[in-house]
């Protein structure tokens, strides 16, 4: 009878594993080496994780497996581990294993073999400085908190106040060949470990911007903006209203135009002036019916009127007429008299 129970155990374990995996399990472990000063390895956020996580790490052929000494917490859940500089060894294959435990069960989440020199994210460049060189040329220089400057490549992003999109240029020093003194420029710089020292796609954050353009230009820009504001919000609406008013007045005053827009209701009165004034209401004369046609409608004979009436009914005695035989005056009780023509 233990067989049914035994067969349920793997199903339960499988279900628990699926539950652990499905209960917002981390997609993977992401490690970033910030300026080679410290490193964080994270596996999710507190919003999605619920289990209890532990991180173990080791370097190939160099160190035993060790547990993370400083966990990162979010909403009461471990979401990552912070490594200090003394715990970081570059150019040694690095392994990480995260254990997720829930309800007494442990799920192991392995990670890939990592080369930490390829996970370096340098700090953003600082001290951006613009110098005026000869003949309208600008030169932008900067410094980096990253200790090995030769291992960095840089990108400069710039735009003027008249441009719509940013331009990006690679280089260790940026020279702007022909600057326009009418414009106001903004510059940003960011860095990355170059291919000589590593193989990474992690760019630093953009630096604090530096601006170039004369003070009057910037003030003029503000004044210009204020002018445009007044023009757009006050002058143009008022001018539009005035123009509309003038058009309406002109429209009303010019009857030729008004009639096109508001056509008059046709009044046939004038068409019948002749009938009432000239012909005194004689429709036939106004229409112009020929006289012989008019005469043809007049009758050319006369008839006297013939009155026809019925005498009143008087019932006679029985000795004169046999019963059942009506007399000439027994047609009915009605008295009829009519006029025949």
């Amino acid at each position: 009878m233990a067989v049914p129970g035994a067969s349920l155990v793997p199903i339960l374990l499988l279900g628990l594993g699926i539950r652990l995996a499905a209960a917002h399990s981390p997609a993977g472990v992401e490690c970033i080496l910030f300026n080679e000063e410290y490193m964080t390895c994270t596996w999710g956020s507190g919003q999605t994780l619920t289990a209890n996580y532990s991180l173990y790490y080791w370097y190939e052929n160099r160190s035993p497996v060790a547990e993370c000494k400083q966990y990162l917490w979010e909403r009461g859940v471990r979401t990552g581990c912070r490594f200090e500089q003394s715990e970081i060894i570059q150019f040694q294959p690095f392994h990480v294993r995260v254990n997720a435990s829930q309800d007494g069960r442990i799920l192991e989440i392995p990670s890939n073999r990592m080369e930490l020199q390829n996970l370096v994210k340098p700090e953003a460049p600082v001290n951006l400085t613009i110098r005026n060189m000869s003949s309208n040329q600008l030169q932008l220089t900067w410094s980096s908190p990253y200790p090995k400057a030769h291992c960095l490549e840089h990108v400069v992003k710039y735009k003027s106040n008249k441009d719509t999109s940013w331009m990006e240029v690679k280089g260790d020093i940026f020279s702007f060949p022909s600057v326009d003194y009418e414009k106001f420029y903004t510059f940003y710089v960011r860095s990355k470990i170059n291919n000589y020292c590593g193989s990474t796609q992690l760019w630093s954050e953009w630096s604090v911007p530096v601006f170039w353009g004369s003070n009057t230009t910037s003030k003029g820009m503000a004044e210009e903006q204020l002018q445009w504001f007044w023009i757009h919000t006050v002058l143009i609406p008022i001018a539009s209203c005035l123009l509309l008013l003038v058009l309406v007045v002109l429209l009303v005053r010019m009857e030729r135009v008004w009639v096109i827009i508001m056509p008059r209701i046709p009044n046939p009165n004038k068409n019948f002036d002749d009938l009432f004034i000239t012909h005194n209401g004689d429709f036939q004369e106004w229409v112009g019916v020929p006289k012989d046609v008019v005469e043809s409608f007049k009758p050319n004979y006369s008839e006297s009127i013939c009155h026809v009436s019925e005498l009143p009914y008087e019932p006679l005695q029985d000795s004169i007429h046999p019963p059942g035989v009506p007399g000439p005056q027994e047609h009915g009780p009605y008295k009829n008299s009519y006029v025949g023509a």
Partner: protein
Amino acid sequence: MSHAFFRSIFRVLPLLLVLSPVNSSSCTMGNKTTEIRVKYENILSHDIEELVNISAEYRDRCCKNKRHEHNKVFFCNDTQEIESLQSMACNMLKFFNKQKINKEFRRKAALVSCGTLQVLQCKCGRHKKEKVCMQVNAPNNEDTETVEQLKKKCNQEFCELKENISSLRSCWNKFEKIISR
């Protein structure tokens, strides 16, 4: 007594020869780090990058099962980066005659090895593998296989070569970082 003295000498000398380190560094660039850096940055790094990119196009699934983790050739030892690079470059040269690996790929790998040895002014010890470098520079007139055909091939020698290339690149990165201070 004199013949006993000479006998003892004769025993010691062969012992000295046997016990002398086989892998003593035969690189002569030594402290000329600026010159090494210039040659590496301007020439060799591009060849290495190209080789790594070609290597990455090949299927990696069959290589993941067996990792040559304990092969000392792939270690870039601290304070011995030049020796490690020499060791890796000399080891890579042995793949030049492996027929199971695509010929062009072998040739490029050998070019990088020879370039490393040339920049560091190193030799490969007794076996004189650097003789291969004479053949490497000869142009390859044979038809090369297509990339699709290359992607289907996978053997352990190929996996080992890929790992060698990756280790060589990492060791150069490490060396560059050190000499860039």
